[in-house]
Each structure stands twice: as structure tokens, then as C-alpha cells.
């Protein structure tokens, strides 16, 4: 994974993890986009031979450690949602950026629902609509992140 400037992929993933735990005011916090989701989804579409479900699972595991949730909750949810993208990467690649952002938004909804379901199963979590809000900001973030990451990929010639 580290060949051909693969370290850049790792760096972007680490930055996404940091952006996920950066402290924010409580009111903005509910709308925090899923940086990890966006970055993993992009690399999954761009380099499916290097970033795949296993990568998503490992990043999700780190997210579990960082967020202090039961180990494996975010890992499993991220892996399943990324599976949807990884299994259809040839189709999704040909969509326009706007269509892609809708798909990423929907996948993010799936991700948050999965996390909620597992939490509900483990402890008596109650569903609040605010758990889904990040999907909106993630969908809005996608086009910009897509352009930025594509620029990075072309600049460093990551294949």
C-alpha cells in the first residue's frame, strides 16, 4: 500500500481521523461531516486495488478507539457502508459529482443507521433524528473533497 506515494493515502486518512475528533461547539457538532467516510469512499473509487473494505475496517477500528465506543462498532458499520461503494465502484465512477454526492449521502445515512442499530443492540440507545444530520453535510462536502483529493491524487501520481 505504501508504494507509489501510498503514504499520501495514509496521510489523508489520518487527517480525516483528526478532523473527526477535533473539538467543536456543541451546536455545530451535530452537523460534523463524516470526513473518514468521504476520504475512504474517494480512495475506494479511485484506487480500488489499494483501498478496500479491509482498509475501511482498520480506519473504523481506529475511530472506535478514538471515540471510546465498543470496539468493532464503527469498524463494522464503516466496512459495510464502504462495501456498497466498493462493489459498485465502476458504476459510481461514471456518475457526475452531484450524483455521487447523493450516493455518498445515502451511504452515510446507512452508516449512521448501522452504528445506531448496533448501539441499540448493545445498550438502550434512543433514536434521535440528529444522528442523521451529518449525512447532509457529508453530501455537501463530497464535491469539494472530491476535487481536492483528485488534485492530490494527480499531483502525486497515485494509481
Amino acid at each position, binding site marked *: 500500500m505504501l508504494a507509489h506515494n501510498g503514504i499520501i493515502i495514509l496521510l489523508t486518512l489520518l487527517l480525516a481521523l483528526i478532523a473527526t*475528533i477535533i473539538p467543536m461547539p456543541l451546536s455545530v457538532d451535530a452537523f460534523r461531516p463524516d470526513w473518514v467516510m468521504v476520504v475512504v469512499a474517494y480512495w475506494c473509487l479511485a484506487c*480500488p486495488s489499494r483501498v478496500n473494505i479491509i482498509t475501511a475496517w482498520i480506519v473504523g477500528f481506529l475511530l472506535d478507539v478514538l471515540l471510546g465506543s465498543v*470496539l*468493532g462498532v464503527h469498524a*463494522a458499520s464503516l*466496512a*459495510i457502508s464502504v462495501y456498497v461503494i466498493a462493489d459498485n465502484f465502476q458504476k459510481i465512477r461514471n456518475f457526475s459529482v452531484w450524483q455521487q454526492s447523493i450516493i455518498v449521502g445515502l451511504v452515510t445515512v446507512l452508516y449512521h443507521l448501522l452504528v445506531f442499530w448496533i448501539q441499540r443492540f*448493545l445498550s438502550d440507545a434512543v433514536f434521535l433524528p440528529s444522528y442523521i444530520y451529518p449525512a447532509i453535510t457529508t453530501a455537501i462536502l463530497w464535491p469539494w473533497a472530491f476535487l481536492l483529493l483528485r488534485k492530490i491524487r494527480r499531483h502525486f501520481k497515485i494509481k
Partner: protein
Amino acid sequence: MVFMSPIFKHGPSPQHRLLLVLFCSGLLIFFDHAIGSFETSRGYLQSLVSPLQYLATAPKKMMSWTGENLSSRSKLIEENQQYKIEKLLLKEQLMKLETLEKENNRLRLLLSSPLRQKTKKMVAEVISVDSDPYTHQIVINRGANDGVYEGQPVIDDQGIVGQVQNVGTISSRVILITDVTHAVPVRINRNGVRLIASGMGQVDKLTHNFVPHSYDVEVGDKLVTSGLGGKYPEGYPISEVLHVNKDETRAFSQIYSKPVAKIDRLRYLLLLWTKTIPEVEAKNEAIIDSVKEGKE
């Protein structure tokens, strides 16, 4: 590595990979949640990711640092004056407390009950608050290097905040009293009735389960730790009763209380050592001796 065309599949198929990782996560969830066998490795994992946490808080730290350095002279003088007045008031209270403590020790000795012991304390700073809505945890900048241990009580300037859950080398994770999985044995300061305060996953509410209707609980009652669980030292404020519903059709009365600690605005915390330290013990013995001599 040769560039591999993604048109031709290689390696295990996505389905197999998914099955593999789902199996792994199933195992992880089971061992972590049901058996709790990751308690020690969590500490190592915590130390592993603490650089990320320090990096994540760096921008905010820098901003508050510049803010502090750019504050005006007049504001500093004003603050300083305020602190001086506060210190004066606190000192006056402390004087009273010292005589009271001595008196209390004397009385306790007369009753031949053990003396209350002074404990070691350490100031800690919050370095990250979880953005996960399902857990109420924070990370502080003290770890095993500072002698932090698992289950250690953490307070702020108002009252109990929570206890240490995992200890890393330079940082540790604190579970807050409002977490769904957390409960504290408490008593009502007014009459000594014992209750249990459990978290509900809301920052401003604690619930008290299994309280019979006959118990004397009123809105506005102050709850303090009872020290019965052995985790928290006795007598620290924890919450104030907010709502009492004595509906006889229910088996137990419904009681909610509001934590006195500012759970959603934590910054500086105090770690308490409930285990006694040798020098304090020596001091206590000296007190006992002096009191005994006084008696004779």
C-alpha cells in the same frame, strides 16, 4: 508494485472481505462488550492514538493561547482583583474549616471512629470530548506517568464529574456520570436517604431507579456521594433533585436530578487519590497524638 487494472479482479472478492471483517468485528464486539477482555489493551490503544488527540486539540489550544496572551492589561488587572477578593473569602472559610476539622477529629476520636484522611490531588486538562452521541466520555492529559489509575474519581470545581476508565501513558479516558452505563451511590444531604444516580445519556439529567414511594425526597434536595461503592470518596456534591413524581400506579417513584458539575463545559478537572499517602498518614498520626495529649 505493478499497476493493476481494476477491471480484472484480483485477491479475495469484496464479499469475502466483507465476511472476514464482519466476523472480526463480531468477535471484537463480543469480547469487548460482553466479556470486557480488552480493558488492558484499551490502555495501550489509548496511548497509541493519543498523538492524534493532541494534534486534534492543537488548533484550539493555539487559539486560546493567543487569546490569553492578547488580553488587555486592564482586563488582567480586573481579573486579578477579583481573584484576590475570592482568595480572601476562601481563606476566611478555610480558617473556619480548620477549626471545625480539628473539632471533628477530636469528636471522632472520642467516638473512637477512624479519622477522615486528606488525599492527594492533581489538576488535569480536558484534551478531547467525544463527538460520538452514544457515549459520554472525555480524554484528559494525565496518564500512567502521573500515577493515574483505573476507577479514579474525577471532579471539577462544582462536583463529581466521573471516573477514569482507561489509562494510557500520557492521557486517559474518563467516563462521565451522565453516561448510560455509569451509576454512583449517593445520599441526600438533608436526611441521609441513600439512592443511586444513574446516567441517562443526557448531559443535564440523572435518574434514580428503584426508589420506594415512602422515601423522603423533595425537589431541590442536594445529593452527595455516599462513598458506599468504594470508588468515590464520601461527601462530594453530585446533583440536585429536579423532578419527583410519586405516581402510586407505578412500582417506584420517578426521580430526576441535575448534575452540579458543568458536564458540557468541562475544561480543568481535579483527579483525587482515594488511597492514602504515607506523609498524610504520618500527619494524621501526629494529629491523633496531639489530640490524645490534649485529652490527658
